[in-house]
């Protein structure tokens, strides 16, 4: 994807977004609601015309692919005619793409819907609809899978299954997977790389390990102690940043282990010792903070304005 931009009226949904998805890995496409994830994916798949920029698969735009379903499988939304059975829904696309009709049954089995194939899709649960949409994407056994919020509506068991399925596709079968989500925790255990967007702009692109190390590096430690003043002086003595408030110390640029060791060495009693940054989630919020287009004021802020 290179220099993608798209606006709807006065709203700039995506601006000058560029990133690359590596083959054989699961890439998480993250951002808060309204960050432009769906718009980006729709431009990638030729369903929307970008105002500027290009999106290609191995150098070819989606609309020029000769066998699109064999190259890219996409789950954008759970779209099907409610009166048509799941199996017939799949057969429609088998016919259109020239696959044998037996593919419909194969992918139904692959996503665990074999028993529900003859039922009207309108009667499916949310989780079953997601599975049917995934089955549609798998029809052509594509090298690339693009999934927009595939975990929406799945129960914990379904999410567990989806995680394993995506990892299996990428790591065992060498497929390229791009999966969008607004929840980092949802994909944290699945993805190898992340692309984080906020307000239509690229915020961060890199491996999960890089993101994690960022989370650990910027440590802020919170300490509660009856001897707070003495401990603060002790820490300040060798240049460690400490702020003190009501017997609670906020120590920056260190780790809970280091602070604990210092307190133990000095024989200072501690009542609480914890990391202020709660790992990845905090980094994610930090990165996307303030970039949410439709951010609701936090309860605290609402309280303050009363």
């Amino acid at each position, binding site marked *: 994807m290179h220099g993608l931009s798209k606006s709807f009226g006065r709203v700039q949904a995506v601006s000058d977004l560029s990133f690359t998805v590596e083959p054989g890995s699961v890439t998480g496409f993250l951002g808060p609601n309204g960050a432009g994830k769906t718009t980006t994916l*729709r431009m990638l*798949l*030729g*369903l*929307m*015309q970008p105002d500027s920029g290009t999106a290609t698969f191995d150098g070819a735009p*989606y*609309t*020029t*692919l000769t066998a*699109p*379903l064999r190259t*890219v499988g*996409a789950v*954008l*939304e759970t*779209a*099907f*005619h*409610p*009166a*048509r*059975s799941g199996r*017939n*829904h799949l*057969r*429609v*696309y088998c*016919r*259109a*793409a*020239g696959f044998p009709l037996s593919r419909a049954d194969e992918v139904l089995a692959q996503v665990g819907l074999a028993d529900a194939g003859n039922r009207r899709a309108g009667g499916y649960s949310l989780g079953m609809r997601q599975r049917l949409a995934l089955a*549609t994407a798998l029809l052509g056994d594509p090298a690339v899978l693009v999934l927009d919020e595939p975990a929406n509506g799945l129960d914990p068991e379904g999410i567990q299954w989806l995680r394993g399925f995506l990892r299996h596709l990428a790591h065992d079968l060498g497929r390229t997977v791009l999966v969008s989500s607004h929840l980092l925790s949802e994909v944290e255990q699945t993805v190898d790389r992340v692309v984080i967007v906020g307000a239509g702009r690229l915020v961060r692109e890199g491996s999960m390990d890089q993101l994690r190390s960022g989370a650990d590096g910027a440590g802020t430690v919170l300490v509660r102690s009856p001897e707070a003043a003495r401990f603060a002086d002790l820490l300040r003595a060798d240049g460690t940043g400490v702020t003190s408030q009501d017997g609670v110390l906020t120590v920056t640029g260190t780790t809970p282990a280091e602070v604990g060791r210092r307190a133990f060495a000095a024989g200072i009693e501690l009542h609480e010792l914890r990391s202020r940054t709660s790992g990845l989630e905090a980094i994610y919020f930090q990165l996307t903070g303030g970039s949410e287009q439709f951010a609701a004021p936090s309860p605290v802020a609402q309280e303050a304005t009363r």
Partner: protein
Amino acid sequence: MIRLVRSEWTKLFTTRVWLGLLLGGCVMVGGFAALLTGFAGNAESGLPPVGTPEFEQVALAQATNATVLFLILGIIGMTQEYRHRTATPTFLTVPRRWKVVVAKLIAYSVAAVPFALVMLAVNVLVVTVYAGARGAAPSLTGDNLEVLATSGLALVIYALIGVGIGALLRNQVGAIVGGLVYLFVVEPVIRSIPATSGAYKWMPGGGLEAMTATFQGPDLLGAWEGGLLLVGYGLLAALLGTLLAVRRDVV
């Protein structure tokens, strides 16, 4: 292309819309044919009596009452993609979107042929039995046969027009309501006002009447010209709809 056409047939026959429209059409055509035969020769109705060539040609053209259902068939065939959002997987499968519209035009024109034959069969059956009971069943020869052929053709063409309108308007309810209002309100008004009735022969309804009407009515084109006019309208709507479908974002 043949793959896409077969895909459209799979779409059509895996929901029950076609069955409802077919049965509705049978009831409609049978009902109109029976009413017409029942009131034939009645002085107040102004209908020619059973046994005359005028009666037979009007009675055998009653299948054209189902044009509205064929129009709806075409409209639903196209607009269901947008209504149920299956336009997304459809256009993902076929990124060159004009192919989808062309496949639908072909698929629905072909599928409309057996549907139209059923309508004609109902029409002929009702008229033959009822008019036969009232004295003289029409023969299926000469002008009578020509009326049947053009009626059937008109039905098929209306399905084509429906696909075109659907591609143009996308909104299923809007397209159907708009189509009905046009056929049953706008055109009859234009037809009845002397100042505008001259334009009527160039409109879809005028084209239909030119194909099938055998007596009375305003100035009309010839039968084949009327048919070509109708096909032209269908293709024009489809062409505009295709151009828009290719450009518009699918959301």
